[in-house]
């Protein structure tokens, strides 16, 4: 990674931001768990090739919103989602949209690293294999290598591709999970507190990785740590009690938020 290319990327992104293009648009999104309402008419747009951080105190609905974006909430029996969420121009809750296809386009990384109890290679190859993305072995090898490269895990893992993914350290496991998500070449990557189970050094590596991925992917990250949100994201959305309090540029959010509650939260008055 050299400074030049990073600067170039920043610049390109800045240009893009001027004519804002939204990758995902959420309109009046509400979520119910049985009788309990967890989200109240959230309107939140996710910009393309941007890292959007969702922050807020525990139980504020940020993870719930994240899980709406690739319909992971479908796996919870009692969960009901209303409102409208689009990916590009497609309504993702439209019956004509297939959830499998949606999740292939909107990948997800979870709070706890959850590598499959398979080899590192098979972990990465899993997604491309089920989606039939590789025509042959050489193709697959290339996808695996590229994904591990992008996740910054190649150098550590190239000699032990056939070893079990569960044998890696926590930070490596999480990067493996990110590599696994990348291998499907999604358009959006959702990250649900990806560093909460990691030590500071591993966290730093993952943050660095997120930073690099931004040029190619739209990333939405839920985080508990405001420092992390400040470090990795360009846009930040603050949730409180199931409502979207404020959504703004990260810089502005952490220096001069519009909403008093954001101010309080950032100052550590609650949460």
């Amino acid at each position, binding site marked *: 990674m050299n400074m030049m290319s990073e600067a170039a990327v920043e610049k390109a992104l800045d240009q893009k931001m001027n004519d804002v293009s939204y990758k995902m648009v959420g309109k009046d999104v509400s979520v119910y768990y049985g009788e309990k309402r967890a989200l109240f008419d959230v309107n939140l747009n996710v910009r393309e090739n941007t890292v959007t951080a969702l922050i807020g105190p525990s139980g504020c609905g940020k993870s719930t919103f994240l899980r709406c974006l690739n319909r992971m909430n479908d796996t919870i029996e009692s969960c009901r989602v209303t409102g409208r969420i689009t990916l590009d121009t497609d309504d993702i809750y439209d019956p004509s949209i297939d959830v499998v296809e949606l999740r292939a386009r909107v990948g997800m990384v979870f709070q706890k690293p959850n590598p499959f109890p398979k080899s590192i290679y098979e972990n990465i190859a899993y997604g491309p294999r089920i989606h039939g*993305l590789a025509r042959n072995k050489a193709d697959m090898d*290339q996808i695996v290598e590229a994904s591990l*490269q*992008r996740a*910054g895990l190649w150098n550590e893992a190239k000699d032990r591709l056939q070893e079990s993914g569960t044998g890696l350290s926590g930070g490596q496991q999480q990067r493996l999970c990110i590599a696994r998500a990348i291998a499907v*070449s999604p358009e959006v990557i959702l990250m649900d507190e990806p560093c909460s189970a990691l030590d500071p050094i591993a966290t730093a590596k993952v943050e660095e990785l997120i930073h690099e991925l931004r040029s*190619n992917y739209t990333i939405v990250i839920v985080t508990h740590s405001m420092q992390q949100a400040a470090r990795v994201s360009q846009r930040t959305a603050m949730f409180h009690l199931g409502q979207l309090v404020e959504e703004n540029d990260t810089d502005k959010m952490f220096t001069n938020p519009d909403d008093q509650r954001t101010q309080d939260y950032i100052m550590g008055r609650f949460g």
Partner: protein
Amino acid sequence: MSQVITPSAAPAAALGRPRRDIGIKRRYAAERRFRAYGIAAILFGLVFLFILLWSVVSKGYTAFQQTMITVPIEFSEQLIDPKNERASNPQKLLTANYPVLARNAVAKVLGVAETDRTAMRDVGLMLSDSVRSQLRDLVVADPSIIGKTQPVRLLASGDLDSAFKGQINLSVSENNRKISDRQVGWMNQLSEKGVLAKHFNTGIFFNGASSRPEAAGVGVALIGSFYMMLIVLVLALPIGVAASIYLEEFAPKNRFTDLIEVNINNLAAVPSIVYGLLGLAVFINFMGLPRSASLIGGLVLTLMTLPTIIIATRAALKAVPPSIRAAALGLGASKMQTIFHHVLPLAMPGILTGTIIGLAHALGETAPLLLIGMVAFVANYPTTPLDPSTALPVQIYMWANEAERAFVERTSGAIIILLLFLIVMNVGAILLRRRFERRW
């Protein structure tokens, strides 16, 4: 690093880029197939459960009705005691030819001449052999009945019973079935007159073993099973609870307790017939206890049920949260007091549920009982657990081995009784669990 960008991982920069083909259709077909396998598997299980129950019930419900012939019987002195010597020789009343009384009575209703010997024999075959003891008991109980005429309800023979219930295919040639056309004619005649009818069959619940299907019942087997369940309950529950308390609350975690743990889990999966061999070798051959006694059956079933009860009890004890123990210990109770005053009462519903389920298993167990000689023809009620006896499932086994058609009906009837007991026990266990279920 970041320069390595492969085509497949290219950024999705442009909107509306072409959709990748990820084989959605094919994959959803596979998904549906997979689901269908699951549903088919469940249906397979349920259908066979239904067929099993249906086949038993459809064969067995008729066993609870019995064809009876009610005729006025003339207790003719001439036939019972022609020389009037019953006062001097009490044997006389026991050995009199009672079946002839019944046969004559039926023949009279049918209008068959007593001189027609073959016809009379056929009439006799329509009645169960048990009429002998039935009439004898009547006369012995009240000798003054002799000389009078009194209506008596007699058991029809097993073959007639089957025919009347429509279980015999009458289109088969007469020589190939056990009941002749003439008898069928008489049967219909008697039925029209209201003499022959089906009544609720109390005999199946109270009678002992009999080689005559129409007179056989599970009475002795019920008593035997009852004794065994009592022994299992009295022995297995306290021992099982005591063992679980030790293992769960006191035992140090070492190799020995680990061994006990593995051992108990293994014992729960040892084939039941092995327990039968154990009982045979230890209780009968070594200790010299009597064969066929329900005591031994009870002991064997106790050993067999013990692991189940221990496993259930340990689970129930484990479910009691440690905070309760801590609270009691903190008040100065000894460990023993804590367990007996606080933990055990809270675990009791779980323990009882496990015990009932263990008992239900023991009630249906057959194989070990065969080995300790409970396959016995026992016609008399056992009075103590040391008397020869049999058990409900063993009775079913013995009847299942009988060739006669009417025994199939009896067997199914006995199975229905057994299943009813099991249902009652299991429903009891479920209710107990529902009633006392606690969420910590």
